[in-house]
């Protein structure tokens, strides 16, 4: 993309422009009521364009290295985009653009109060997520991690009521997680004197015998496990996802967990050598077992939920387990499945939470048992919900099936039949609680009499349908995604 002056700086602008927009939103929003939404739209729109430019460049020319302020690493901060985060960048900005469109009607309806403040913090959240993905410096990552987390705490608390305590719990747990991450960074700095990811990757192998490095790794893993809500450190998630305002639920459910998983993968595979992770410290096997447990426990918990958003939240715990299981199994097929599931789940869960928000806004109903015959009232939203639900269960040709297929193949290759069983049984468990929702929506009328059609507002409906359609398209095109997008990512994290 050739714009005079901008070219070459897309990588940093993708973070800087939204940051500026957030500030402008705060300043201008007091005077002009329309400004916040359009600034948010502009920020995420620009971020999408920039991400696309970066993505195409990385696909064609290889990794981009951008030195902030012209200072060379390892003294300066480096932004580095390679195959692993190029597609994450695109995913984050694309989904946040859809969520921003979705928020136009949803935010004024649900947030009684300062819409300006909401959007300011919302844009900050997007900035933080983009920053995490794009940076190549471990401390810089901590800063962006906290930016996005703080924004998330605030956005969740915007719903008031039960969301306040949920948000506070998330504050406590999230801060502990970030502190653990910081400790890990500290230990690595003590041992190597560097904060640059590429530099650390070069310096660490000679230090693997040293227990300090092991401790650093341990802190990283535990901290990130809390952040991504890996069982059993998931307890903050159900309340936070369920009670947050609908827009917030969409963006944190679909993006925050994924970005955390990206950080985990980046640290485990780019920074550390996978061989070290398997032989010296059983980190990967432990992760795979925790992932398997998360899958089962998350699905079991979801079964008992009657609140639709809480059910989706526990389902997310299970889905994160899939990705962690794939990471833990650590053969290339399983890793492809894990990365594919990152993309797929962001789209599936995003679409489902969008549908949930649409239901709550137009009908006020949160309990599944109230969803009688909803397809008459909101047929298009329910079509998107149907696609999302089928994808979560793993029915082809929706995308959810294909990432599970890769994970199953990976487990078969590893010879671990127990993991195969876990993935297969969880599909059935997912079917149990999703089909219950579908039964109410499509097949359980409350009484005779016609139900008037009253769909969600267009700005909410269109993103929901886009997500639903994407579920099907990503499924049919999954090999395309793997060959173009993920191949590069796998090259980055392949065995050295």
């Amino acid at each position, binding site marked *: 993309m050739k714009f005079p002056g901008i070219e070459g700086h897309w990588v940093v602008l993708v973070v800087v422009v939204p940051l500026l927009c957030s500030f402008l939103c705060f300043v201008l929003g007091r005077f002009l009521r329309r400004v916040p939404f359009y600034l948010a739209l502009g920020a995420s729109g620009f971020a999408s364009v920039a991400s696309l430019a970066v993505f195409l460049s990385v696909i064609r020319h290889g990794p981009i290295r951008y030195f902030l302020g012209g200072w060379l690493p390892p003294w300066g901060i480096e932004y580095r985009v390679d195959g692993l985060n190029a597609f994450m960048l695109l995913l984050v900005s694309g989904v946040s653009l859809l969520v921003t469109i979705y928020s136009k009607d949803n935010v004024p309806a649900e947030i009684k109060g300062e819409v300006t403040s909401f959007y300011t913090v919302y844009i900050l959240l997007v900035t933080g997520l983009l920053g995490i993905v794009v940076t190549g410096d471990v401390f810089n990552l901590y800063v962006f991690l906290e930016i996005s987390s703080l924004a998330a705490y605030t956005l969740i608390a915007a719903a008031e009521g039960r969301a306040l305590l949920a948000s506070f719990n998330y504050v406590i747990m999230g801060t502990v997680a970030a502190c653990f991450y910081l400790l890990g960074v500290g230990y690595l700095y003590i041992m190597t004197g560097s904060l640059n990811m590429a530099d650390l990757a070069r310096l660490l192998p000679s230090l693997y015998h040293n227990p300090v490095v092991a401790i650093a790794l341990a802190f990283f893993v535990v901290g990130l496990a809390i952040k991504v809500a890996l069982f059993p450190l998931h307890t903050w998630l159900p309340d936070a996802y369920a009670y947050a305002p609908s827009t917030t639920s969409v963006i944190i459910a679909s993006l925050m967990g994924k970005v955390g998983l990206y950080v985990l993968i980046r640290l485990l595979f780019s920074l550390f050598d996978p061989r070290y992770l398997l032989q010296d410290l059983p980190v990967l096997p432990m992760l795979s077992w925790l992932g398997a447990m998360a899958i089962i426990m998350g699905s079991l918990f979801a079964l008992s939920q009657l609140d639709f958003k809480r059910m989706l939240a526990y389902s997310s715990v299970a889905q994160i387990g899939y990705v962690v299981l794939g990471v833990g199994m650590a053969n290339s*097929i399983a890793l*492809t499945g894990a990365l594919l599931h990152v993309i797929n789940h962001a789209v599936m869960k995003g679409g489902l939470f969008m549908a949930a928000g649409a239901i709550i806004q137009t009908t006020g109903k949160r309990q599944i048992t109230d969803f009688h015959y909803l397809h008459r009232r909101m047929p298009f939203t329910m079509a998107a919900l149907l696609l999302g639900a*089928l994808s979560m*269960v793993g*029915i*082809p*040709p929706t995308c959810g*099936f*294909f990432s599970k*297929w*890769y994970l*199953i*193949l990976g487990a*078969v*290759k590893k010879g671990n039949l127990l993991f*195969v069983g876990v993935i*297969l*049984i969880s*599909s*059935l468990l997912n*079917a149990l609680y999703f*089909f219950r929702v579908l*039964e109410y929506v*499509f*097949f*359980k*009328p409350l009484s005779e009499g016609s139900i008037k059609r009253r769909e969600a507002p267009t700005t909410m409906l269109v993103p929901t349908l886009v997500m639903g359609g994407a579920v099907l398209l990503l499924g*049919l*095109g*999954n*090999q*395309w995604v*793997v*060959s173009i997008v993920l191949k590069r990512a796998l090259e980055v994290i392949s065995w050295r």
Partner: protein
Amino acid sequence: MEVISSWRPLGAVLVSIGAFFLILATGEKRPNLREAWSVGAAIVKFLLVFSLRYPVLEGKIVECRLFPIAPGADLLLRVDSFGLLFGLVASFLWIFTTFYSIGYMRGLAAANQTRYFACFALALSATIGVAFSGNLITFYIFYEILTISTYPLVIHKETEEALRAGRKYLTYTLTAGVFLLFSIALTQYLAGTTGFKAGGFLDGVASPKVLTLLFVTFMIGCGTKAAIMPLHSWLPTAMIAPTPVSALLHAVAVVKAGVFGCVRILGYVFGPELLRQLGLIVPLGLVTSATIIVASVFALSADNLKRRLAFSTISQLSYIILGVALFTPDSFKGGLLHIPFHAFMKITLFFCAGAIYVTTHKENVSELDGIGKAMPLTLGAFAIGAFGMVGVPPICGYLSKWYLCVGTVEAHKPLFLGVYLSSALLNAAYFLPIVYNGFFKGEGGPVKEASPFMVISLLITAAGAFVLGIFPDFLLKVSRIASYAMTEVLGG
């Protein structure tokens, strides 16, 4: 074997997906237009499938290779003789089921007809997709779409009982799907490919124990849809569906898709030699024999007519699997022939049951005395179907049973001959009294048949069953196609 490329298999699958959307868009406001989409799609689909008959009978295979859908596998439609056989049966009978459905649903003034016709179209798309799948992955994709698209049809009535039946249906079929998925993953890992190959491709890829385990999981996966006992229990429960659904889907499409899957696994994944080596033929034969006999016994005690027909179906499906499993020329051909023949007969029987229900609201056999006097055409067609099931010439049933019985002699396994013969006796025991009581007992009433849509449909399928017994190659050339498939698998 020459392979030619064509868009026609894809067209056959897609035409009813198009109908699905058109039906949903047309909605409740213009029912005649909406039904026209179904009829039109059915006719186009059949014509496309029929046109594939020419290259296949010349020895070619018609392929439509779409894009890659999984690592190492493309989305592949590949029409060989066996796939063509199933495709012809399903698409041909859909035309008449559509007409019948129009009469049935309007006769009952049923609700949610848009959803019904739309899901029906989607289910037929999936059926043709199953028939034309070229590898296990494509097969699995369409197989699961079939499960999902038939679910709304099963619970159509939306009563508590229907919802429970639907849950049971999904539990069985989705669990079977999980077993099937595991089997496919294992196959992909062991053999590196999942493409169907006449005569099998699994020879030598793994130890006998692993292959036996694989066989068992495959059989659970496909056998559940094929209602092999003890995985059959969903089928009688699914009779809560509207009768056209039971007729086409649970006598032809869904269960035959399960049987189709079983035969593909037996003949095109494992192959006769490998199965003989592993010693799996006799155990499979015993399980299917047990199904044949036990299901017939259950049919005897079922008073609800559709339930009786369901158990009869369970029994007849295992005829096909047993026939194929013995792997002798006549046995294999008989098994394959039974697919279309049983379809015609069973669909006639179900059509009659539905016609009786719509006009008299009677569901149970004990209520049907004298029904023949009020509905002579319907019960006459029923009689043709019933005689065919027992094996009375010239209705087609006797022909497939003949081949099957001769096949047991060829295979030197007279036990199975006994199974077929006793089953024929049991069939007579639970079918013929209905015919007798219907015509000769009870008081009649004035002649009042069901709507012409229904009556004409069931007369045509009954006539089909009759004609196919005399000219098995009439129109659809099923006998030649079955012979062809048999030589492919056994000779190849």
